């Protein structure tokens, strides 16, 4: 059995957006007891990640690490003027994931107690983000 739906997040503007409860709702709606749930984000700047952000410092530390790993530079300003993404945004996207697959157990997301599912938006442009959710199982 296959169930498919789309999640829309409006005007994300950089940072992490938790989508765990939205995914739980779709899994419940699907009636699929056992299987997998595949998430795919339709963006070239926003990615998906599973993390423990129970404490805000963990979210900030992750952001600091990524900013340090792929710093924004002055060379980026010319690209931005040409209407392109800052290169650091493209690079952070390439280093992260545009899809995730999680297990479905007993009609719930089969994730660990400290795991949350997040959309990680590297761009500051306020844009709608779309995630296609495909649940396969029985």
């Amino acid at each position, binding site marked *: 059995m296959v169930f498919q739906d789309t999640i829309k997040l409006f005007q994300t503007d950089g940072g992490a957006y938790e989508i765990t409860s939205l995914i739980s709702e779709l899994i419940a709606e699907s009636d699929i007891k*056992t*299987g*997998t749930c595949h998430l795919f984000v339709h963006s070239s700047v926003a990615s998906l*990640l*599973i*993390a*423990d952000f129970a*404490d805000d*410092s*963990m979210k*900030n*530390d*992750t952001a*600091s*690490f990524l900013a*340090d*790993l792929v710093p924004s530079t002055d060379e980026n300003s010319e690209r931005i003027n040409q209407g392109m993404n800052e290169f650091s945004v493209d690079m952070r996207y390439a*280093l*992260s*994931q545009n899809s*995730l*697959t*999680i*297990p*479905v*157990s007993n009609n719930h997301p*089969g*994730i*660990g*107690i*400290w*795991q949350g599912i997040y959309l990680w938006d590297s761009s500051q442009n306020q844009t709608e983000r779309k995630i296609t959710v495909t649940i*396969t*199982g*029985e």
Partner: protein
Amino acid sequence: MVFHRELKFSTTGRGTYNISQQVEHAIDQSGIQSGICQLFIQHTSASLILCENADPTVRTDLETFMKKLVPDGDAMFKHQDEGPDDMPAHVRTILTQNALSLPIQKGRVKLGIWQGIYLWEHRVQSHKRKVIVTIIGE
């Protein structure tokens, strides 16, 4: 057909653990001949990777690279509740994979000859880790 089970591992601290045999065993139990084997680790400080399984120095080098990329006790990190390896373990997990999807052909996981499936423990202390295996196929 969907086969679903939990694998448990006890790690003895930071490092990589070959779990290929346990995955093969789960595929055998499922009786599925052709399909996809989905592995998902339910933690935010340990991950799953595919890695060369012949020369163990490859994995030693991966560890050395990660230690340099995400140093323990880095002053940049504010979240240190559980020690200097706490936040680095979360970042290392985000930089690697929570999940792997592997093809199954003729009842066996169809890996390349040099590919092994590894659980990568990022915490210095020993931990109990859970991996959910979902096999979909026929």
